[in-house]
């Protein structure tokens, strides 16, 4: 089966005020039609930049240093703004992380959604557009859509704004949906509702989705495959089952261990020691080494390649090297409550 989206060796750098931030480093993955790929990872590791770089929404100071992006078999790495415009909204759309600032404060919510509808369905009459907007608002669970249509973003609660952004993203039934932390501002019931909705859409229309989330529960619910990112690199990728039940990368272990579910009573939560590296001068070897209690000497010297575990499961840690000492994963297996 043809890959809908294929990213190869993508590196993205951003010229910041202090120097070049290597926000995405050598990332490769692919996405099939109707598939949900979740990206989890440390905050600031480049997840949002990755999504935005595929949609070409990064500021001019961001450059794709290397690698290629193929959509539907077409190489869009060098697409210009004009060509990208045709793809955006229809082929891929995005739910942004900051719902408040993502909405134009001077335009009514309904209008902003209607705009998205109209771009891709130019022949719609006004009534049709309105109808569609109201349906979208209902779909994402905004109550009283008729009245809410005429409200402005600041009159909405955080979660409602997030859902509006979602409605906009879904307006044109995109092929690929980048959902950057789409449910952080939602309570669990609505979150579940939304996740089910996304699932449904994905099943019905075959929409593929890249879901960025920190909530491992959410990821567990919707993701087919999970990629774990650290310091701009994908350190582990595999099906949800593989990553959850058989994580191989020490960072993944750390993440899982940090969950409150693993805290015994009221004792402190586990945290990964140390601080994430800056991406301005990433360390020579494995960026995670200095926080990794299982770090090998080679981790400080050389970057680990992607080791294949199964056909779908890869991880980038020297621990998987045949030469490395075998250790038992401290995590994995089914969770128990």
């Amino acid at each position, binding site marked *: 089966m043809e890959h809908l989206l294929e990213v190869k060796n993508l590196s993205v750098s951003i010229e910041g005020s202090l120097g070049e931030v290597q926000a995405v480093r050598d990332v490769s993955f692919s996405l099939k039609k109707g598939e949900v790929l979740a990206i989890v990872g440390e905050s600031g590791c480049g997840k949002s930049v990755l999504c935005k770089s595929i949609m070409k929404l990064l500021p001019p100071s961001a450059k794709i240093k290397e690698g290629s992006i193929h959509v539907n078999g077409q190489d869009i790495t060098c697409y210009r703004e004009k060509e990208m*415009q045709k793809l955006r909204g229809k082929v891929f*759309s995005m739910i942004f992380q900051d719902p408040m600032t993502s*909405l134009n404060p*001077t335009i009514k919510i309904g209008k902003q959604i209607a*705009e998205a509808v109209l*771009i891709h369905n130019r022949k719609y009459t006004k009534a049709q557009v309105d109808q569609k907007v109201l349906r979208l608002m209902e779909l994402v669970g905004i109550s009283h859509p008729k009245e809410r249509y005429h409200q402005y973003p*600041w009159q909405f609660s955080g979660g409602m704004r997030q859902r509006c952004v979602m409605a906009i*993203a879904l307006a044109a039934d995109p092929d690929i949906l980048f959902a950057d932390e789409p449910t952080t501002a939602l309570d669990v019931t609505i979150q579940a509702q939304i996740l089910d909705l996304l699932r449904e859409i994905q099943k019905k229309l075959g929409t593929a989705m890249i879901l960025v989330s920190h909530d491992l529960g959410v990821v567990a619910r919707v993701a087919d495959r999970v990629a774990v990112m650290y310091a701009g690199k994908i350190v582990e990728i595999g099906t949800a089952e593989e990553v959850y039940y058989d994580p191989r990368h020490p960072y993944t272990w750390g993440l899982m261990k940090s969950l409150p579910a693993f805290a015994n009573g009221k004792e402190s939560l586990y945290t990964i020691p140390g601080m994430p590296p800056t991406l301005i001068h990433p360390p020579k070897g494995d960026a995670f080494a200095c926080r990794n209690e299982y770090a090998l000497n080679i981790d400080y010297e050389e970057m680990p390649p992607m080791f294949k575990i199964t056909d779908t499961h890869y991880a980038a840690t020297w621990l998987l090297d045949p030469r490395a000492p075998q250790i038992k994963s401290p995590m994995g297996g089914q969770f128990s409550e």
Partner: protein
Amino acid sequence: MRQKKLVYYGTKSLIFLISVFILSVAVFYVARLAPGDPLISYYGDRTEKMSPEEREWAMGKLGLNEPISVQYVKWVKNAFHGEFGISFKYKQDVLEVIGNRIGNTLLLGGIGFIIMFAGALLLGILCAWYENRMADRILCKLGTISSCIPEFWMALVLILIFSVNLKVLPSSGAYSTGNAGNVGDRILHLIMPLTIVVLEHLWYYAYMIRNKILEEVRADYVLLAKAKGLNKKKLMFTHCVRNVMPAYLSIMAIAVPHVLGGTYVVESVFSYPGIGALSYESARYHDYNLLMLLCMMSGILVIFCNIVSQTINEQIDPRMKDEVITEKSEVVEG
């Protein structure tokens, strides 16, 4: 709902009327309290030779030796009957003095204003579109320089080029004699004064638009709009420019009297009979009645334009409105 609207516009009109009233008081008093001899505009050079008794008599004749408040009440009474007195300098009913010229000014100022309004917007957008690229940089420099060049200089250079050397444009007047109704002739006469009027202010506003838009295109919502698939043009016009409009409109509302009345230099260089010179001279030589009427006209225009722009702004950007957080709940100053 309709009643609410009625109340809304009712209050606006009331505020308008009160403002106009206060304005009239303010101008009346400021004009009379500011030192200067109103007799000069009536009696010319002879004023200087007047004996104190003669002065007394002359002031009395012009009704200037009563207390200011009495004068004001009289003025208001007469104004209600549509009598605004005579111009000291022109010795003619002020309505007539202004009436003879207001048309020309409205034509010059009005067209100038529209061109400026649209031009500054377009120029600003253009510069913002090509931010920091060649076109933008050149325009920015040229614009800044152009706004430093004195008006009279530019006007004379235009005359030198287009009238003296090329002989394509008439250099003075609003129309050639006997051609008052000829549209083509009027347009020909308008070109150069218009150019000056527009150039004088254009960049001032264009630069503001440019910078505002540059702020605006940095907002995050632009990303979402782009992600929707909006093309640049739409994005610029329906989002960025829209958000810039409130600031622009409110400054344009203020610009109205500047553009309409601030054409003194243009009028004198191009012998264009408008009210710019009247405004200047009436203020300078204390031609009270003329001054009052001109001020009231421009004041009414300003207040009206501002109320209109405020109303439009509240439509464009609800954040401008006060009820946004409802009557009961305001941000408590911390």
